[in-house]
């Protein structure tokens, strides 16, 4: 496999896993909770690094998964028990956790194989050289590819097995409760899945650009269809397109690949916003003018 292909593949895995979960986030009006989680898992990642002394992915995913769920819990705690409005509750919680993460990185700069740049935009360019070598010395191929592939698989299994439950708790929570599906359980399962995905994506695209992949492709797909299943298929296609076009844009300009991916994600959204056959701003405007002329 060529280096180009490896990077694009890793990007596509990450974009797809994020996008699929993002569909539920934006339909549940929880986009900013996703943003908060992606920032807040940082201290979890750093602490896992410190404890294991390596990029042991399992510990990291567990550590960050716990912190992600804790973040959601804290946001709700301040909102319900302290009567703090939700937007402020989100803002206070995630900035605090993210600040802790950045400070931990500075304090343990020598001991942690992480730096602030990596937090901001990841190291997806290093995918081909960061190899997974077994204890026996066999080279298994790029490590990040395994991690992002595994997480994508987990997310696919999660959505496939819980499709009905996720669907009902998203669109009709009252009915879901009536037929015995716990909205609270599925809420936290979804948040756990978002945490795991952000952590796994963290090394490749960084803490903040994950948000672009969580929100932009599903929002684009949402402008093109009403149907949840079609929306998820479209999100996957857009995610892959973002990965491919972002990579070549970065290569052409010698900029950050993750930054270029976010830029392309924004561009695709802009196109859908203006030209979507059903929802497009220009399309609707053009139709109105035509109607006036007749």
């Amino acid at each position, binding site marked *: 496999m060529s280096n180009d292909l490896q990077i694009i593949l890793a990007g596509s895995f990450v974009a797809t896993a994020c996008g699929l979960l993002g569909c539920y986030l934006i339909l549940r009006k929880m*986009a900013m909770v996703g943003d908060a989680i992606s920032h807040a898992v940082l201290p979890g990642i750093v602490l896992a690094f410190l404890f294991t002394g390596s990029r042991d992915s399992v510990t990291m995913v567990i550590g960050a998964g716990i912190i992600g769920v804790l973040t959601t819990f804290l946001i709700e705690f301040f909102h319900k028990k302290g009567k703090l409005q939700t937007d402020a509750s989100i803002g206070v919680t995630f900035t605090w956790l993210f600040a802790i993460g950045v400070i931990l990185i500075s304090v343990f700069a020598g001991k942690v194989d992480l730096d602030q740049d990596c937090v901001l935009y990841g190291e997806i360019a290093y995918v081909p050289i960061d190899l997974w070598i077994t204890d026996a010395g066999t080279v298994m191929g790029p490590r990040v590819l395994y991690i992002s592939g595994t997480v994508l698989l987990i997310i696919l299994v999660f959505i496939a097995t819980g499709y009905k439950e996720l669907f009902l708790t998203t669109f009709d929570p009252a009915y879901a409760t009536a037929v015995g599906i716990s909205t609270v359980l599925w809420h936290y399962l979804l948040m756990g899945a978002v945490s795991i995905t952000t952590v796994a994506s963290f090394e490749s695209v960084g803490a903040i650009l994950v948000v672009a992949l969580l929100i932009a492709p599903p929002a684009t797909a949402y402008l093109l269809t009403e149907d949840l299943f079609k929306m998820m298929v479209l999100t996957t296609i857009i995610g892959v397109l973002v990965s491919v076009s972002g990579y070549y844009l970065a290569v052409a300009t010698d900029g950050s690949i993750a930054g*270029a991916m976010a830029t392309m994600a924004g561009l695709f959204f802009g196109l859908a916003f203006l030209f979507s056959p059903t929802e497009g701003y220009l399309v609707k405007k053009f139709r109105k003018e035509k109607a006036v002329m007749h």
Partner: protein
Amino acid sequence: METFLDFFSFSDPNVRYVVLGSILITASSAIVGSFTFLKKKALVGDAVAHAVLPGVCLSFILYGEKNPLVLIIGAFTTGWIALTLIDFISSKSKIKEDTAIGLILSVFFGIGIFLLTIIQKSGNAAQSGLDQFLFGKAASLVGSDLITFGLVAVLLLVAVYLFFKEFTLISFDKDFAASVGLPIRAMELILTTLTVLAVVVGIQAVGVVLMAAMLITPAAAARFWTEKIKVMIWLAAIFGAFSGISGAYISYVAPSMPTGPWIVIVISSIAFFSFFFAPGRGIIQRLLTQKRIKKHIVDENILKALYQLGEEEKNFFDKRTIETILSKRTLRRDLLIKSLKRLKREGYLKHSDGLWFFTTEGKNKGQRVVKLHRLWEVYLIQYLRIAPDHVHDDADTIEHVLTPELEARLEKLLNYPSTDPHKSEIPYE
């Protein structure tokens, strides 16, 4: 300790600049942030903060050096575009506001990072330090930078002072503000502009990534201490300024540390302290109040049960065993015993040989609860036309809440009925 004294004696003019600058910057963002907080648009500030990054990079690419004024103009431009786009997307399509905020925030930041990495690889020596916009560095505020940012901060404070009444109105009640002839759109525009400006200067101290905290957290903390907007804004400013000084100090003693995150830790600690310990609105105070009310309700229910037992046996001052009370009112035994002891301390009950009985005060209090319960049942049936078998639960709740004033009005309104819907007598004194 020595560095502490060095710093806080302000003998070094550089330190004076840095401290003054940090205070101005953090306090002015806290003040402007108070209004976005009250308008429930706190996260919009987060989006603007991320969105200024591409502006900073673009103006650097176009101008070729780090001129503070040019960077401010660039940052201001993209911050403004981001805000406008959020409004435009959420009003002109089915995309909800929170999605629009997250989208603009991450895409603009992505573009910013993309440009920043291009600049860094371009080999332009003047670019070094541009990445301080990401996490802030209060101590690097020197000379001309400080004057520029200080001036903008002063401008912000003056604007808030001048438009204080108008901003307050549009934050709390837009419709009312419109009805008294306030130019809403113009005022919103000014407030938005001030928000973007606050972000542009604030990122000097805390950086793009954590700027949201400077807008949201001081206001959120201050809200827990007061109900008055003026006090709240003053408090927010003081909290902000305090975290600003702390940040400057940390930047001074540990230059390798990123300043922004430390400022955020300080302001977050103030906020968490406020959330838990503020009198009145704080979480602990709330829980205590809830507990007190719960105890009060248990007490009143026991007095009620004793009164009803007295009614049945036509003897209010008979001595009762705990089992008898439990047969009238199901309750956890330990809670009952605790409450009985409390009622004895307060003089409502007496206790001898394991038996409990009313004092006169106790009987009167039990009687009042029973009266309120029955009056309320009559009220629900006569005035709200609720079926007699549906009124009991509601009366069980309201009997603990009604004040003597309401009690008097209720009696008068219902014309002193003698029995409740279930034919039980309503006891008057």
